[in-house]
């Protein structure tokens, strides 16, 4: 266990067509608000880091209304959104969703993200990871790995099964120079039934890069369980949106339990 680096608790914002959504089972998406004000709130909450994942699939944004804190006419696509969000973000920002080319990667970094999160592009194209790593460095590239109970990796929002098990897949990513891996259990998405500790634990102890668990958090104690039982850090989306002072509650619960290796202002 590495004690130099503090363990992280990372809120994740899911975006569809410019609006923040709540997701369940990768299918049921409900609009829950404006991402810009949410990012500003997370900055105020002094969060460790932020993941921002765009699952729009399409290219154009339509906010549907104009009473946001920003001029929505200026935000036409997901890259403009990175620009706008990063202005409100005094912490590290990882951006993912629809990354297909090196130009996409360059845009995301230039617009103010610190890390690019890739997923489906890796399908049969692991060298894309090495290409990014060679130019931007391993630290700038994060892979989001979605898997199901059958142990296999799925691409394209969980729709397409890939012929590789999650463990082997993560190993291969590591061999190609990935900086960090976010593993997400598709069945646990939005279920708030706790994280898939067994898989997270195996992968985090198996590979040499940082691992972050995403999906499943249903209470502040689920964060603690991941930190205590595995070497992975922990991210969550829905839970942070629906609870008052959720972030500080999570941190306080972890710290008060005796787990001190986190950022925590007493």
């Amino acid at each position, binding site marked *: 266990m590495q004690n*130099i680096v503090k363990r992280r608790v990372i809120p994740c914002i899911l975006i569809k067509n410019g609006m923040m959504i709540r997701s369940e089972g990768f299918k049921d998406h409900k609009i829950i608000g404006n991402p810009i004000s949410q990012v500003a709130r997370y900055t105020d909450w*002094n969060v460790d880091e932020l993941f921002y994942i765009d699952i729009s699939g399409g290219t154009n944004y339509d906010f549907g209304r104009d009473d946001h804190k920003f001029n929505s006419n200026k935000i036409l696509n997901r890259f403009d959104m990175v620009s706008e969000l*990063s202005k409100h973000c005094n912490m590290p920002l990882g951006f993912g969703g629809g990354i297909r080319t090196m130009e996409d990667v360059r845009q995301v970094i230039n617009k103010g993200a610190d890390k690019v999160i890739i997923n489906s592009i890796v399908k049969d194209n692991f060298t894309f990871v090495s290409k990014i790593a060679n130019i931007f460095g391993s630290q700038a590239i994060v892979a989001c790995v979605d898997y199901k109970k059958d142990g296999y990796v799925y691409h394209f929002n969980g729709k397409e099964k890939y012929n590789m098990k999650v463990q082997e897949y993560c190993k291969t990513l590591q061999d190609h120079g990935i900086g960090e891996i976010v593993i997400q259990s598709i069945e646990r998405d939005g279920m708030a039934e706790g994280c898939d500790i067994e898989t997270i634990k195996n992968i985090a102890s198996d590979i040499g890069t940082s691992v972050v668990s995403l999906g499943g958090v249903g209470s502040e104690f689920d964060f603690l369980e991941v930190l205590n039982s595995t070497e992975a850090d922990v991210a969550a989306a829905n839970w942070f949106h629906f609870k008052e002072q959720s972030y500080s509650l999570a941190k306080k619960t972890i710290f008060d339990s005796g787990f001190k290796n986190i950022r925590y202002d007493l």
Partner: protein
Amino acid sequence: MSIYLLDIGISNLKSVCNTLDFLNTPYKITNKPEEITSPDAKALIMPGVGTFAAAMEELKKQNLVNAVKDFSKTKPLLGICLGMQLLFETSEESLGIEGLSILKGEVKKMSRSKLPTIGWCETQIVQSIPYFNAVNNLDFYYIHSYSCIPSDSNIISMKVSDGVVCGVRKENIFGYQFHPEKSQQAGLDLIKSFLEYAKYC
């Protein structure tokens, strides 16, 4: 006179711009050697994401190597992350490539069990930094696999508990391995201290 931000095309320039905006500090972005050597350039910030070789190649392509070196002789220069590593002579990341060689020393891969180091590390201030008051150790945000090993240990300003050097200062030259622009309040204070130093330099 202005604060200049060096744009080498592959850096995370935007985060540093955002921070300067946040601090209401006007700045100019440049990739032109004549602007860097002009009297208007009061201080230079060199952010960086990427590999040592890729960054040096960009600097060479845009004829910036000598301009930055000249600048560093008298004016306040701040290197962040890769920008700090570029101040040194060589890097294990890109063997055979010479850095800016503004500071003596090398950049080596860290011996930590998990690399890259991604996250917040408690950081010790080992040498006082002008206009920066820190009583206790501070948490800063790091993303790196390589770290600087200065030949002269007297220039070290900050360290992590395992001895990894994460801050250097030699007179008007400052370098931080972590990302102050991503380190919430502690980072903002550190950037402010550089701007303050530049103001009175």
